[in-house]
């Protein structure tokens, strides 16, 4: 086990109990007992922590894989357009009023993610290269974004409008074991697929021709990536809305502590993503805010945008 992995595991072991105790109502083992503490822990905070760990691990690893696949440190799992398409599916469930019926909202989001994957397949085809696929992903993202805006503008009532806008901000508030049961298996399968793709991602560091000469089948790798990113991002958006920047930031944080191969950044990125989302969600919970708690998607974007800017400036300095 390498040093960054040991460090991240230790940090997670410390952060998980802290996240269970932290919130509007602090539960401290050294203070007088809090009424309904068991229910708060088991029904509210534990599923929320498990969901943060699951989504964070998925998004972190997906970001590392996407950066390896596109050989670009600015790549993000959102580039395939799967997240906006999943969000469009969810928005349509609000628009049509089906969102209130249990599993329908995540189901619509997963259908949106699946639709994006199908559209990518139609546009890029079997022989589509990385550049064509990325452009197809950007087109899907743009189309899904436009349709989402259309759904918002044609929102049937102010309540639906408010629900859509709030949901799009991304959050883990009020999520329970049902969301964990939906997202965890899909994310796990996505992570396994990424793990299988890891050697091919390493070969791709040498360029597409050299990777093929090392036995990489580009079409198979492309479909492994779409399947993995689709499962991870689609299930994440389905249960928590839009949560950006994790996949972009986390691989950069861990890469200096690895040998820089995409395969060796996958596991640290998954652990760091889990840690980041857990801590960010804790912060959202304990931060006093009038009218509720800070949305997780907003807090990560507030942290992510300056990070992205710093990255761009650093790259500009290196090029100059």
């Amino acid at each position, binding site marked *: 086990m390498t040093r960054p992995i040991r460090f991240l595991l230790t940090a997670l072991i410390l952060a998980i109990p802290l996240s269970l105790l932290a919130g509007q109502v602090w539960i401290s083992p050294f203070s007088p007992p809090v009424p309904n503490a068991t229910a708060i822990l088991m029904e509210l905070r534990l599923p929320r922590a498990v969901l943060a760990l699951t989504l964070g691990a998925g998004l972190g690893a997906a970001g590392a894989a996407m950066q390896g696949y596109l050989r670009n440190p600015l790549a993000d799992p959102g580039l395939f357009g799967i997240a906006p398409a999943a969000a469009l599916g969810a928005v349509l469930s609000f628009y049509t009023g089906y969102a209130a019926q249990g599993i329908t909202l995540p189901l619509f989001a997963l259908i949106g993610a699946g639709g994006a994957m199908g559209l990518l397949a139609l546009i890029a085809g079997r022989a589509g290269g990385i550049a064509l696929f990325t452009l197809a992903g950007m087109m899907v993202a743009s189309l899904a974004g436009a349709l989402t805006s259309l759904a918002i503008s044609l929102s049937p009532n102010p309540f639906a409008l408010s629900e859509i806008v709030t949901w799009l901000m991304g959050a883990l508030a009020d999520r329970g074991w049902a969301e964990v049961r939906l997202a965890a298996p899909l994310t796990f399968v996505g992570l396994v697929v990424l793990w299988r793709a890891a050697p091919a991602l390493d070969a791709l560091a040498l360029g597409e021709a050299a990777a093929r*000469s*090392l036995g990489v089948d580009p079409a198979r790798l492309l479909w492994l990536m779409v399947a993995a990113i689709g499962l991870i991002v689609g299930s994440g958006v389905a249960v928590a809305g839009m949560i950006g920047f994790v996949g972009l930031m986390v691989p950069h944080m861990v890469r200096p502590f690895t040998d*820089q191969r995409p395969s060796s950044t996958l596991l640290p990125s998954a652990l760091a993503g889990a840690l980041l989302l857990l801590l960010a969600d804790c912060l959202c919970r304990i931060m006093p805010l009038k009218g509720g708690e800070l949305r997780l998607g907003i807090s990560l974007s507030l942290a992510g945008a300056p990070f992205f800017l710093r990255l761009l400036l650093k790259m500009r300095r290196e090029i100059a």
Partner: protein
Amino acid sequence: MLEAHGITIPQRLHDVTAQLHPGRVTAICGPNGAGKSTLLATLAGLAIPASGTVTLTGQLLAELPPENRARRIGYLPQAGEVAWNLSVRTLVGLGRLPHRTGSVENARIVAEVLAALDLEPLADRPLSTLSGGERARTLLARVLATQPQWILADEPLAALDLAHQRNLAHSFRTLARAGRGVVLVVHDLALAMNHADHVIVLDQGKVAAQGKPEDALSEAVIAKVWNLKSRWLGEPGHRALAL
């Protein structure tokens, strides 16, 4: 033996037939756009001909599983791009990807290759700190770490100074003497004349000449293919081309 039989790729190669033998350095020469890189990529199984076949010891290359082909043919592309700032040792280790050997065996083979190309002192240096010559040797070491029977390299000597060109050309000859087949795309005709055992000259996608360097790169062939009047000077093995 690596053989191309009547290979045609529209607008690039026309009915190219060539036999490449292990134990030899074969140079592919020709003017820009002659189809040198396309022929090399086809021989490596990376470009699919519209007609014709490539066989490796009698087996159709197109029918070999990709990992099997990768273990037998090492390919060094012209653009030596590497996406991440890997260390020399890590980059060379990528050559072991087609093999399913364990990490101990992989580390042993990587150490051997690093030693063979005098890269041991640089093993832990990141790529961004290497000179052009060191980088070229590192990229070749990555191919050698696969331990392929065939080494196909696209202009591996370009952008190197004279001393590094000579050293790397010597490395290729040593590999061929050890029984490997080495196929190089070379622009410098003097390097091909002095360091190759066999030369294929391409012109507009067709084989213009092939054979021993002194025949395939004769002054008459150079006049016909490159449209240049030239004269070879010096002794065999130390030839220079005067224009």
